[in-house]
């Protein structure tokens, strides 16, 4: 008997995409600019975020953070030192955040009370690629200790990013980090990608990073007026 071929044409991550679209609409309505931070483990997301939350709070902005971690709540405790609202998402071994996990952890938070919501994703350069969290901005980290060719090894994630942070710049000389090669590789997989160079340790590049966030938030709010 010849088989019948039935067209399905459905997105495998349709449910996640739908939830992410709902979240995006909620963030939009509340005027909260949401940033998804992705990288390999240990690239420096938490340290830079710690400084970022403190600096934004200092200038009178109202940031908040969600942090995904497979098992511990160490990162959330580190971030909570900045005094801004922080919540841990324990993924229980899952290697990426999904829109549902974000949604579940927003309960009892009044989003309208935030200007920025940072979501520190689980350290993973593959699995985080296809999961939309409803963010307005996806930032991928590349630590100078990781080698310049990371973008070529993980083009999917780097391509999906809206900006790149080259982190741990204080270690660049010690690692013989080839800055031009890194920039070339980032732009090979994502032409035009804005690149910020930072050190969470010394604070180098913080003012450019903060200025970038402010600009993007302003553009986000402006674009919302057209809705």
């Amino acid at each position: 008997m010849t088989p019948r071929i039935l067209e399905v044409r459905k997105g495998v991550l349709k449910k996640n995409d739908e939830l992410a679209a709902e979240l995006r609409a909620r963030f939009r309505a509340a005027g909260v600019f949401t940033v998804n931070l992705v990288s390999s483990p240990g690239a420096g997301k938490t340290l830079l975020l710690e400084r970022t939350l403190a600096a934004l709070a200092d200038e009178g902005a109202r940031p908040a953070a969600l942090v995904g971690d497979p098992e511990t709540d160490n990162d959330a405790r580190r971030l909570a030192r900045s005094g801004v609202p922080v919540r841990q998402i324990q993924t229980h071994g899952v290697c990426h955040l999904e829109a549902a996990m974000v949604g579940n952890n927003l309960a009892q938070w009044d989003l309208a009370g935030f200007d920025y919501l940072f979501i520190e994703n689980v350290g993973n350069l593959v699995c985080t690629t296809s999961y939309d969290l409803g963010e307005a901005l996806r930032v991928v980290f590349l630590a100078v200790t990781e080698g310049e060719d990371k973008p070529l090894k993980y083009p999917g994630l780097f391509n999906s990013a809206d900006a790149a942070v080259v982190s741990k710049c204080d270690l660049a000389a010690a690692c013989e980090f080839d800055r031009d090669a890194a920039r070339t590789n980032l732009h090979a997989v994502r032409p035009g990608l804005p690149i910020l160079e930072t050190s969470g340790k010394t604070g180098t590049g913080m003012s450019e990073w903060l200025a970038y966030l402010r600009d993007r938030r302003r553009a986000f709010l402006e674009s919302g007026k057209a809705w």
Partner: protein
Amino acid sequence: MHELSIARNVVEIATEALRDAGGGTVSVVRVRVGVLAGVAPEALTFCYEIAIRGTPLEGSQLLVEVAPVVLHCPTCDRDAQPPDICHLECPVCGTATADVRGGRELEVESIEVI
């Protein structure tokens, strides 16, 4: 490794399609996976074997069609495939562009029912 959860989603979607079609035996499930989607076809195929155990899809085969990167070149004003996934530029005029029109797919295309 998130291919197991991806495989479970594939099984769920294919099972629904089978039910909508009034049942039968599924021989083949076709999925389309873009090279930028962050899913490894071999890992997905491996996980599929695990995910179908004890489901109506047991015994079926997963066929993965890999979708290439397709860019829209702003200079030539047409779609084209870059020379490779790590050099997103127009193969005709060399313009680098981030206007990706294909390569992120992650879709269940069809099922074959006997």
